[in-house]
């Protein structure tokens, strides 16, 4: 598999500033701060219900934070500053911003009525970034890079889980995002299919794209992460390079979690 580059898009810097998110009385995120350099690969780990998926969904504004903001290359996501206050953007403006943030779902969420090629080509055409022939050429190229050049005409249900997830990654790449978010990209896969998806993500990591990955694959985190973030109870408990967080955790809760998953 050849190395994937992001087709000339500069990797973006990401800042999460004091983000709070709650549903009723339940606090899902309780003041999360995180600054990610361009090209950095961040792996978020934590027990289920710790808020790690919500954090990812706040970054592209699929969930709205109650307090705090997210910015990409110093551009606020989903809100604008009005004096001292933050005001929510129009839906159209938010949709336009999402083009700069790739998102890969646990359950792939490919469009089942479109072929692999059309799944990848849809967004650049719909958002007016490329003409249809341009988008299809790009889609073909991206599908080849994730090793699916032969299956461009297949519908998602005719593909294995691993192949579907690779199409989903190609679909996220088609908008040339500065940041790509992965929400447990291998959790819905049979064990023997995990490797093919991880190797595509690894290629992205080495090509210098900014990645934020929520995963339970601790071995994979150790291999590719520049930084590991451990979240529990909606707060960042500990963060640092994998050699510190995974091998010499400072906090009791991190040690406890790692002892269960390793």
């Amino acid at each position, binding site marked *: 598999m050849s190395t994937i580059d992001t087709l000339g898009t500069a990797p973006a810097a990401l800042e999460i500033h004091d983000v709070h998110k709650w549903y009723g009385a339940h606090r899902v995120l309780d003041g999360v701060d995180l600054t990610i350099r361009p090209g950095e690969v961040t792996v978020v780990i934590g027990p289920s219900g710790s808020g790690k998926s919500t954090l990812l969904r706040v970054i592209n504004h699929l969930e709205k934070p109650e307090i705090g903001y997210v910015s990409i290359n110093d551009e606020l996501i989903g809100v604008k500053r009005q004096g001292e206050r933050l005001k929510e953007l129009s839906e159209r403006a938010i949709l336009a911003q999402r083009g700069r943030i790739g998102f890969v779902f646990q359950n792939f*969420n490919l469009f089942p009525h479109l072929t692999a090629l059309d799944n990848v080509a849809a967004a650049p055409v719909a958002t007016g970034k490329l003409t249809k022939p341009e988008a299809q050429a790009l889609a073909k190229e991206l599908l080849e890079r994730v090793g699916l050049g032969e299956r461009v005409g297949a519908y998602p249900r005719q593909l294995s889980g691993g192949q579907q997830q690779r199409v989903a990654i190609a679909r996220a790449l088609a908008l040339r995002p500065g940041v790509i978010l992965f929400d447990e990209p291998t959790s819905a896969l049979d064990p023997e299919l995990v490797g093919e998806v991880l190797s595509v993500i690894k290629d992205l990591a080495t090509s210098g794209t900014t990645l934020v990955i929520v995963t339970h694959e601790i071995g994979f985190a150790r291999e590719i992460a520049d930084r590991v973030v451990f979240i529990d109870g909606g707060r960042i408990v500990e963060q640092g390079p994998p050699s510190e967080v995974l091998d010499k955790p400072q906090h009791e809760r991190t040690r406890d979690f790692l002892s269960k998953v390793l």
Partner: protein
Amino acid sequence: MSEPPGATIAAPETPPTDKPSKPLAAQRVTPLRRPGRWIATAVVLVLAAQFVHGLVTNPFYQWDRWGYWFLRPTILDGLVITLEVTAYSAVLGLLGGILLALARLSKSPVLRAVSWTYVWALRSIPLIVVLLFLYNFSALYRTLSVGVPFGPAFFSFDESKLATDMVIAVIGLSLNEAAYAAEVVRGGILSVDQGQHEAAAALGLPKGYQFRKIVFPQALRSIIPNYVNQLIGLIKSTSLVFYVSLLDLFGTAQSMGSTYPGDIVPLLLVVTAWYLILTSVVSVIQFYVERYYARGATRSLPPTPLQKLRAGLTDLRARIRREAAV
């Protein structure tokens, strides 16, 4: 066949002694006999034969008169009216249904309430009442005008010129159809996985595109069978337009029947035959439209009847060849 094929393979151990060492043919399992099923089949066949025989030989049906009426220009004129009313009402009803469904699924409580109330009211009022209401509508509101609500009017229409019988019939049926179509469409939209909405939003697809290209095509898979069901009901409901003095297929037969009282039965049979034909055509179209929207939903598309026939013939030929070889 003298020896079971397995016997030629050198067995590592002697086979268990309780296994019968007879030729394989003797070990074939004989299917259970089901005499009850045969008797029931025979009874049904006799009844069906009796029914067909009666249909053909009973002079009461007057099949010669049926032949006379079936393609009469006046009947065909009525058929055209039926088709027109059905087509307009089906399209307008579906469009109205989509709008009502979107209103019902919107985040505005007012839109939701209005949509719910409309569906509630129109499903409660008999269609014939709606039609007769509209027929007398011009007495209630003599002119219709476009302008500022409660303010000055820009255009005015004289109702009696605008509202032909055809317009009244189409409006009445569409209003009624939209209420049912709204529920069909809403059910279809709800059947689309939440992940699809999220993926479309995460890709930043424009709102209209999300609905037209992602959600609605997937919703259509469950909308089509239900809406066709509606449509077949609609074809038959058009016979009610006779009461707003529009001569559709049924209306024509009815008025011919009062002119030729002896022909009432053959006329009703003509109408029945035409409705059967219309329903059959719709069912065939349904099959192909459903097949089109099944792309991607199943691993391979269901075969068309023609493909099934061809596969069946190939099968049969292979079987005959096999039998002939033995």
